[in-house]
């Protein structure tokens, strides 16, 4: 533990990692409540299209990826209603299309200095000052969105028709939710990468689902699981020289397996 804290690289990574864990934990409750797990897969992979655009047209990396993620999320929010096709089909379509566009644009670029492995699987150890500023800005926007809309999101998750009949502007709040999820995905890509981001946005709430029985408790438990999983994952990564993102996600998977087992044993004992 002391080795880990004495390492300047790990110490620099710890604060942004904890910030990402807190935000992803809060949003993961909404992702699971609204059944948006597959959406996070689609949006995270769509960031590759943003990266491709940034590389091809020499645009700033994170802002371009963020815009691409938000655009895809809002398209997904509107697509099922407008086109009559299911949200899962829309997600699969945009996920594959954006991924293909990203690959084509990156491979067509003359030269690029993007850490593709880091983008795909995450690398919180190489976080720059610019990245940290971008993370704080994104975290602030996500927090404001949550403070403003969290209760309406719960109402819509439970019963969208009744919420709408009670005067809640469901379409507006759903668009806001998809935007905030897209912003959170961009944050998580830094820690877990495009491929593993869904783990950070699903697992903390999935662990909390066994124990929480109110929105506040679900958020608290999800945050505790996310912080514990991130800290333990980073320590495992440091001591065994493993990729940080994968270590965090596998730790969260282990917490989930433990939660599930204990809940199952508790249910059997009753």
């Amino acid at each position, binding site marked *: 533990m002391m080795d880990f804290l004495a390492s300047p690289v790990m110490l620099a990574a710890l604060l942004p990692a904890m910030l990402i864990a807190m935000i992803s934990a809060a949003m993961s409750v909404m992702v699971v409540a609204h059944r948006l797990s597959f959406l996070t897969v689609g949006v995270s992979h769509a960031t590759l299209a943003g990266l491709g655009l940034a590389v091809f047209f020499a645009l700033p990396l994170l802002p371009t990826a963020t815009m691409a993620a938000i655009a895809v999320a809002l398209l997904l929010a509107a697509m099922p209603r407008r086109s009559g096709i299911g949200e899962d089909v829309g997600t699969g379509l945009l996920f594959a299309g954006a991924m293909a566009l990203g690959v084509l644009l990156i491979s067509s670029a003359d030269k690029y200095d993007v850490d593709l492995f880091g983008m795909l699987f995450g690398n919180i150890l190489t976080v720059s000052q610019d990245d940290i500023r971008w993370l704080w800005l994104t975290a602030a926007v996500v927090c404001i969105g949550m403070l403003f809309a969290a209760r309406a999101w719960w109402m819509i998750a439970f019963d969208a028709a009744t919420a709408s009949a009670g*005067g809640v502007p469901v379409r507006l709040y759903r668009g806001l939710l998809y935007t905030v999820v897209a912003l959170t995905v961009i944050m998580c890509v830094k820690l877990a990468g495009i491929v593993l981001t869904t783990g950070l946005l699903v697992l903390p709430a999935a662990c909390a689902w066994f124990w929480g029985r109110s929105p506040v408790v679900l958020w608290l438990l999800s945050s505790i699981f996310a912080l514990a999983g991130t800290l333990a994952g980073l320590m495992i990564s440091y001591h065994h020289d493993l990729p940080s993102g994968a270590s965090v996600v596998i730790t969260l998977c282990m917490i989930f397996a433990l939660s599930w087992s204990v809940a199952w044993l508790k249910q059997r004992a009753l």
Partner: protein
Amino acid sequence: MSAPIVRLDHIRVGEDAAILEDIDLEVHAGHFLGIVGPNGAGKSTLLSVITGLISPSAGHIDLFGRCLGRLNRRRLLRQVGYLSQMHAHEDHLPLRVACVVRMGLAGYDAPLWRRTRDTDQIAEALEAVGMLKHAQTDFRLLSGGQKQRVRVARALVRRPKLLLLDEPSAAMDAPGQEKLYQLLRGLCEERGMSVIMVDHDVAAISAYVDSVACLNKRIHYHAIKGERIPDTIWKHMYGEHVHMVRHDSHCIGCGPEGKRA
């Protein structure tokens, strides 16, 4: 006389094949209206039109004396309690009964910095439907009938001026149904709340409602309390093969297998 709580003027839903056509309806404060009709008659659609969930292709809706428009929709609907027939996602969320009812509070959707806890109102709504002792129970563990009572409590918790219920007695046992109708009757008389309730069992509701609208795309008959609905209306709504059965002074349409229509 004060303006009606709900006024529907020549409402039509659907273009070529109309789901509802030429619906004229007025509901005043304290009135308890039952809506009956066969499956696919447009009963749920009518409630959706009143709540603005479905926009009519023609006609005009007034709520609380004001035209229901895009700008005032939110303000007007805060005074409306609604129980939908669809409950697709609610079993997915691990929430206590009290949390579920809290979501029905008017203004619950306000930002987190605004206080919305009102435990008295939640307890009152749960007490009214006989579910107070289950306030801390996981909603997913309740039976179908108990869940329906909690949904009714969620519609009641905001103390609405207008309550719209789409088959509220579904999955409830007979004593539970009777208690619910008594509760609604009491709310109309004591608080002046207006209730519009869709139900299939006209015999069960006729002792409690002030009037019954017979709907099948359009309102075929609007009977006031104690009035017998003519046999021809039942046959027109449910088809020529319906057998008529008398129950007390009321008329119930029955299908060939003897099922209540």
